């Protein structure tokens, strides 16, 4: 029994690492730009396929999968900015329209992947074999790789946001867009930079998550929904809260899957989040947003 619980907590931890990566990408883009990016899940899917293409078709070693897919998805993110979000940001009804437009992009990308790659699942080549046993818990090297990459990516992001001038500019824009612009920060540059960062995070989490499951055209959807729940739980736009929330949600998912069955994971999560929102409408760690009039 103890071994089962330990195994569950361990797999919850692995899930938390990936959810944190996804949710931070979503919350970053919301915090800085007020864009709710529904194509995040599709970007994950593109990232996973890109890694597969790089390794299987270009016949490069497996560890080229991750950097290759990050590059590809950043190009997609830049295209999303230049073709869609940039022009939309200069038109009325920005918030609603970006939401619908990114949903449309997601549905187009999914259909496109289905046409191009076919419906058959593919295995993620960015993976290592082998496992060790510690106290009855089987720890695969793949899971260690996932946690290492996720934590490294999160640390790199934190360093970038806290230590670099561009990171400062992003945080300033998130705090007060108008004041940041008055200080000479170009809104367009920040927009592009944040989208690139967020797409990079999406592709990393896509590659990592697909190494646990399989790559298929729709595999990004449910992880994206769960990371939305993580974001709401931690407070949209709040990085630290998102990280804590990812751990809580990942653990909850593992425990609920063990005790009730996998299909109840999402309903239970939603129930918890609704419960939290009734008492804290801006998430567990979210600050009360002051509406400017």
């Amino acid at each position, binding site marked *: 029994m103890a071994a089962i619980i330990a195994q569950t907590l361990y797999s919850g931890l692995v899930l938390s690492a990936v959810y944190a990566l996804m949710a931070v990408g979503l919350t970053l883009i919301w915090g800085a730009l007020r864009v709710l990016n529904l194509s995040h899940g599709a970007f994950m899917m593109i990232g996973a396929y890109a890694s597969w293409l790089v390794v299987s078709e270009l016949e490069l070693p497996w560890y080229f999968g991750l950097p290759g897919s990050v590059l590809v998805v950043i190009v997609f993110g830049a295209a999303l900015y230049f073709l869609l979000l940039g022009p939309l940001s200069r038109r009325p009804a920005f918030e609603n329209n970006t939401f619908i437009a990114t*949903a449309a992009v997601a549905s*187009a990308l999914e259909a496109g992947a289905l046409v191009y790659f076919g419906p058959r699942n593919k295995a993620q080549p960015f993976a290592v074999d082998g496992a060790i046993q510690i106290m009855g818990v089987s720890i695969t090297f793949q899971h260690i790789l996932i946690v290492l990459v996720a934590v490294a990516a999160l640390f790199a992001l934190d360093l970038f946001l806290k230590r670099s001038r561009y990171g400062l500019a992003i945080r300033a824009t998130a705090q007060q867009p108008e004041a940041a612009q008055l200080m000479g920060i170009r809104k367009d540059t920040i927009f592009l930079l944040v989208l690139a960062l967020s797409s990079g995070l999406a592709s990393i989490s896509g590659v990592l998550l697909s190494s646990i499951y399989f790559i298929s055209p729709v595999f990004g959807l449910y992880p994206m929904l769960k990371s939305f729940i993580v974001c709401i739980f931690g407070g949209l736009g709040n990085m630290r809260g998102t990280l804590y929330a990812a751990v809580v949600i990942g653990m909850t998912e593992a425990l609920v899957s063990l005790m009730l069955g996998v299909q109840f994971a*999402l309903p239970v999560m939603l129930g918890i989040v609704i419960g939290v929102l009734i008492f804290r409408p801006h998430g567990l760690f979210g600050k009360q947003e002051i509406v400017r009039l």
Partner: protein
Amino acid sequence: MTNARPFIVGLLSLCLALGVLPLFISSRYVLDLAITFCVWAGVVSQWNLVMGQAGIFSLVQVAIFSLGGYFTAVMGVHFGIPPLVTIVPAGVFCALFGLLIGLPCLRLRKAYVALLTLAAHYVVYLLIYADNSGLTGGSYGLYGFGDFGFRALLSARYEILGSFYSAIVIFFVLVLVAYLISRSPLGLAFRALRDSEVYASARGISRYHYQLLVFTITSFFIGIAGSFYGTHLKLVDPTGFEFGTVMTMLAMMVIGGQGHRWGPLLGCALVLTTNEVMRSLPEWRPIVVASITIAVLLVWPLGIATALDKMAAYIRRPVGRKVHLQATPVEPSGVLRRSSPSR
């Protein structure tokens, strides 16, 4: 407030035009398509009321639509109650469900509402899809729960006509109710909240209460449409919950024009036409619909109907002499004065 008559007359003539369609076309396929148009246009009109008028970014309406069908199916399969009896209770059931979703969700704002309602949509989907108790039929869905009795009444050959005319009635009622609500004090409250939320709240207009009210009312009508559509198809299954369905309805609303009274009908007609054009290439359909949606968002961010309105206003503008509107805020009377034509 604008005159209601043009819209109602327009809607009635549209229904009449649809009503004489069987005289010219007897193809079952076309009539089925017309039924789909009627039901979806009605549902999108109601959703448009929630999203365009009340400003609730809710994505749970497709789940409510499907639940309406499921209620009728479950009642028919497990209790033997015919759909004709359960169509209104299905609406009530959906209204209660909408109220249940709305109570926590509407306390929040835009992005949060969108995410939570989307999650709620998938929760309903997963619960139905993974249900192995037999209540909802799981991934197979339910069928054989009876019909409205048109087959017995009109024979198998003309059965479709019964469904067709009922669809027109549902279409008329849903679109008209959506329009009347947008003209009612409820619509006025939403306009006030949109123009100045502080002033409206200070005058005692509670955003939460009014949004909850409109959410529940529209859920009722969407549920009725769902019950009718499920009975018409003689089948309910979880494919109705796919993201493609949500996207298609969103596309209808956006292409037509959010918050515009004709928008949903126009958008629905355009998207269904696109679907028909793309019939031989079904796997490309989502790509084309999404591209059209994005193109419309970029060119006419408020939809085609709104763009047409602007165009009509441009064409109808006074021609021949230039008219200058001049605001004179310093004058004590403070009215707009039209200057004399310049020569």
